[in-house]
Structure formats: structure tokens, C-alpha cells
């Protein structure tokens, strides 16, 4: 489903201060797989997931999605891919502070022309699924870290994506919430979602199909 070929990303390209975030990454991820990229900070996990998730472009190399090379896609096509196929969960949640939980979750649906009622109903469904049915009208600052991350997961799921990309989804939350998220990821896997997780902890490894260990921008 997802394949990379000699993927490289460097910052400060062609300058004396060039930093190679990842180099020569070749991965092959089958559909409905749970893949974990594990490594210490600065090992290139986030950069790799950002490129696979079309949030960033590689300096060299290619990414294939369903055998279609997507690296050369336009920004518009990238946005369409993110809208239709990919859901993101970020380490620091990236919720919009002035919006309530349900508004944050429903935010991706606004440009799709979906009515307010339907947006609310869909957001409510996913928030209830995440155990936040009583927190619909709370703003992020009124929620704990774990609750915010669950809101972020609900937002990632709102478009029913085929791929979930989670960058350190449990790094800022307590163990109980981590376990809850783990359980939810298992459910997603059963439903056929392909999940890519970047983490430096081992908790996801027990349900992972593949674990890539990363160090210094390379897969070991």
C-alpha cells in the first residue's frame, strides 16, 4: 500500500550546515498493517511520517501509495489525499484553542460542505467513542492532555481515513489514556485501517505487525 524508495530529507540543503533528517529510507507497508517506527528523539521518525503523510516533501527519493508515485503530486492533490485518505494525530495535539472539542473534531468537514447538524452528529459520534461524550463543548484548555489527545484522534477519524499517522501519540499523556488509545488503535486495525506510529516507547510493539527501528535518520 505504501512504499518508499531511497527517501531523503535534509535541511539547509547545499549549505555547510546541512542536516540530514532521514536518508535512504526504504519501507514497504501493506494495507491494514500496524507499523511502528521506533527510535530516540532526532532519529527522523517524525520527518519520515510527515513525508509519507504528504505534510512535507522529500529532498530525494519517492513515496508510492497504491503503487502510484505521489511525491510529484501538486499541493492540491496532496491536500485531497490528506482529506480523503489520511488522518493525523500529533504529539502536541494541534487543536485550535478557541474551538470546542466537537468543533475541533468537525473542522475538517467544513470545506466539504457538510451541514452544521451533520458535522455535530459525526463529531459527537467519534467523541463518544473516545469516551468524551460529556466534553463536547469544552475548549482544549478545559481538557487534560489525555482528553486533548483523544479529541485529536477523533478529529483524525472524522473523515474515515484509510491511513492513520500518529506521531508520538502517547508521549504527553498518562498511562491509562495510553492504554485506552492502544485499545482504540487495535479496533481501528480490525476495521482495516493502516496505522503508522512514530514512538520512542515500546507500548505499541505488542500490537504492531512491523517495527522499524530508526537511528540517525536511517532504518536499522
Amino acid at each position, binding site marked *: 500500500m505504501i512504499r518508499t524508495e531511497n527517501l531523503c530529507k535534509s535541511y539547509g540543503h547545499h549549505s555547510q550546515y546541512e542536516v540530514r533528517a532521514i536518508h535512504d529510507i526504504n519501507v514497504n507497508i501493506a494495507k491494514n498493517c500496524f507499523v511502528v517506527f521506533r527510535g530516540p528523539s532526532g532519529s527522523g521518525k517524525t520527518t519520515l511520517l510527515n513525508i509519507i503523510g504528504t505534510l512535507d516533501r522529500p529532498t530525494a527519493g519517492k513515496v508510492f501509495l497504491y503503487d502510484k508515485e505521489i511525491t510529484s503530486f501538486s499541493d*492540491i492533490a496532496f491536500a485531497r489525499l490528506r482529506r480523503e485518505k489520511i488522518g493525523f494525530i500529533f504529539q502536541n495535539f494541534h487543536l485550535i484553542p478557541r474551538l470546542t472539542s466537537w468543533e475541533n473534531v468537525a473542522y475538517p468537514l467544513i470545506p466539504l460542505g457538510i451541514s452544521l447538524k451533520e458535522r455535530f452528529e459525526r463529531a459527537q459520534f467519534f467523541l463518544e467513542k473516545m469516551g468524551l461524550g460529556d466534553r463536547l463543548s469544552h475548549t482544549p484548555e478545559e481538557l487534560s492532555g489525555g482528553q486533548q489527545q483523544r479529541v485529536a484522534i477523533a478529529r483524525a477519524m472524522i473523515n474515515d481515513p484509510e491511513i492513520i499517522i500518529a506521531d508520538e501519540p502517547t508521549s504527553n499523556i498518562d498511562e491509562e489514556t495510553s492504554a485506552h488509545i492502544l485499545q482504540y488503535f487495535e479496533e481501528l486495525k480490525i476495521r482495516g485501517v493502516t496505522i503508522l506510529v512514530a514512538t520512542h516507547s515500546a507500548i505499541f510493539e505488542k500490537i504492531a505487525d512491523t517495527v522499524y527501528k530508526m537511528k540517525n535518520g536511517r532504518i536499522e
Partner: protein
Amino acid sequence: MHKHLNLLFLATENLLRHRTKTVVVCLCIIAILTPFITAIAISEGIRSQSLNSVNAGADLYLTSDEFGRNAAISLKYLDEIKKIFGVTKIVPRIVGRGFLQNKLTVIVGIHKEDIPEPVTCISGRVFENTNEVIVGHELAKYFHLNIGDQFSMRCQQRKVFTVVGIFSADSGIWGASMIFMPFNDAGDLFGKENVATDIQIYSLPGHNSEIATDLYDIFQNEAYRLQDKQMIELYVKKGFMLKEGVFSALYIVAIALGVPAILVTSGFGLSERKKEVGIMKATGWQTLEVLELISFEQLLISLLGATIAIVLAILWVRGFRGAFIAQFFIAEITMLPNFALPARFLPLPCFISFFFAFLLTMVGSIYSSWRASTVSPVVSLQS
């Protein structure tokens, strides 16, 4: 369509959520636009009233010419002018200025039967005897003049007049400080005999050139000036363009101070906005959708600011009689005029004001938003 409506509603919500920013930007827009709209409305009102007066006036205006300027004209040719073919009526007038106590007034000396139609007495009657006058209602109000009151004026001669009527004229600004008196009394007051400041000539349509030729024969070696309606209209228009120009020049200075304020306030919360754009892009929003949302926000805030500015301009004109601004357009009035200003709020200046506000707010926000939405979402999210 639903998508655009969603974006419009979201833009409205965003403005309500960022109340402080919305209020500050609105205040900046109002501060810039209100004086501008007020000035344009006053200018348009006076221009329209002046042109109406010109249109309702005589077809030709005859004066002497001294040093290339209008000068008093002798009445000795009055009978000859009357006889010119095509002339239907001639009205000799004395139009001058004099102080009534500390207030400069316009004195019009005219024969009773020649008083213009728009000048109608709202109380009393038109003068019939010597030393009787009718005064504009604003002037009467200012000096608490009633029918039967007497006052004295001094120009070249001192004279005592009796108020026999108070008039209201369509042309508020002209009628406001005007005194009509018999032609001969005005002559006495200014110490001039057998002259008029001008002779108004009413003619049959299409006869102006023939009348001009005949006048040339009558005056022969005497310097005179003959101006028709179109020329007067042109002077009026040119005069207002000049006044608007002076106002605009002063106003540009004010705008130069106000624009940076709008640009700064429009850019308030830029880093928060940048991050928000990053989140939008990461969750599948297209660049155009982000820009559409921001454009809607600026459109709404401009509409709100411009609408309030128009309402305040109307209040400024109606409630405060265009205080501070009216004096740019009407000579020798106080900061707070004591008569109702003629003002016209035309759609075009209002639309231009709205467009200007939109342009300003867009300049303040669109570039940064466009930058945020065209760079990779990762960069925007790091803000």
C-alpha cells in the same frame, strides 16, 4: 454552495471569537472612513444644491469687467437690454456682504417682484416699502429676530431696517445667512447708485448667441462679461473639485497615520493564525479554501466597519451639522454650523469606502495567510 456558506458562517464565528481584534480593526476602519464619507456627502450635497440653484437661475449673467474680474454694471442700458429679441425678463441685483453685529451676512438687493421662487416667507410678508427686509430663518433664529423687529447695519452707509418677513429657501446654505431688501435700499447701504452687481437675463431657448451679439452692439467699447448657465455650472464644479482636492490632500495625511494601525491590527495573532492554517492544511483544507475563509472574515469586518462609518457619518451631518468638516466646503462658517447642511449620501462613495476598507484589511492579512497556506503544513504547524 454549502461549502461557501460553511466558510461564511465560520468566518462570522471567527470574528465573534476574536472580539478584541474585530473591535480594534473596526474602530480603525471607522476612524478612517467616517470623516471621508462625511466630507464626500457634504460636498455632494452642496454641489447638488449649487447646481440646482444655477439651473433654476437665469440663462445669462451680465456684469462689467474690471481687471479681468466681475464688477458692478451700470443700469443705464437696462431698457435697451429689455428690448433685445429673445429676452423674456431681466433682473438687476445687488449681492454683497456685510456684518450684522459679528456675523457676516449675504445682502441681496432685488425688486420685490424679482425675488426667486424658492424664497418663500414662512412668516410675515415680502417687503413692500423702503427699509423693510426679509431674513433667512436661520439668521432670524440666531439673532432671535421676529416680525417687526428693527436692526441696523452699516456698510458704506448706516441704515435701520425692519424685519417684515422670515423666509425659508431650498438652498439652505445660501438662505441661512441671507437678507433680502429692496434694490434701492441695498444701493444706499453700499453707497452705490444706478449700478447692480449683476443683471440676470432670462431668455427664450436657443437665443443666447443672438442676445450676446446684440449686447456686444449695445456695450461697444465698454468692458463687460457675459456668462451663461453652463459656464456658471462649470465654475461651481471646478470650485468643488478644488475644495475636495484640498480636503483629500489633508485627509491623505490622516489616512497615512491610520493605515498602519489597520495593517498592524489585521495582523494581530499572526502566529496563532499561522498555526491554525497549518492545522487546516494538515486536515485536508485546500489553500483556496483557507484564503476564502480569510477573505470572508475581511469582507465581513469591512462591511461592518464601513456600515458603522456610514451611520456615524449620517449622524455627524444630521446631528452635529458636519462639525469641523463643513468649513472645508462652505466659506466663513463656524466649526459647528448653525444651519442644516445639505448632504447627499450617494451609493458610489459608500461602496468605495467599503472597498477601501476591504482592501486595507486584506492587505493586512492575506499575504501572511497566503504564505502560511502555501508553505508545507509542517512549517506552519511549527509556528
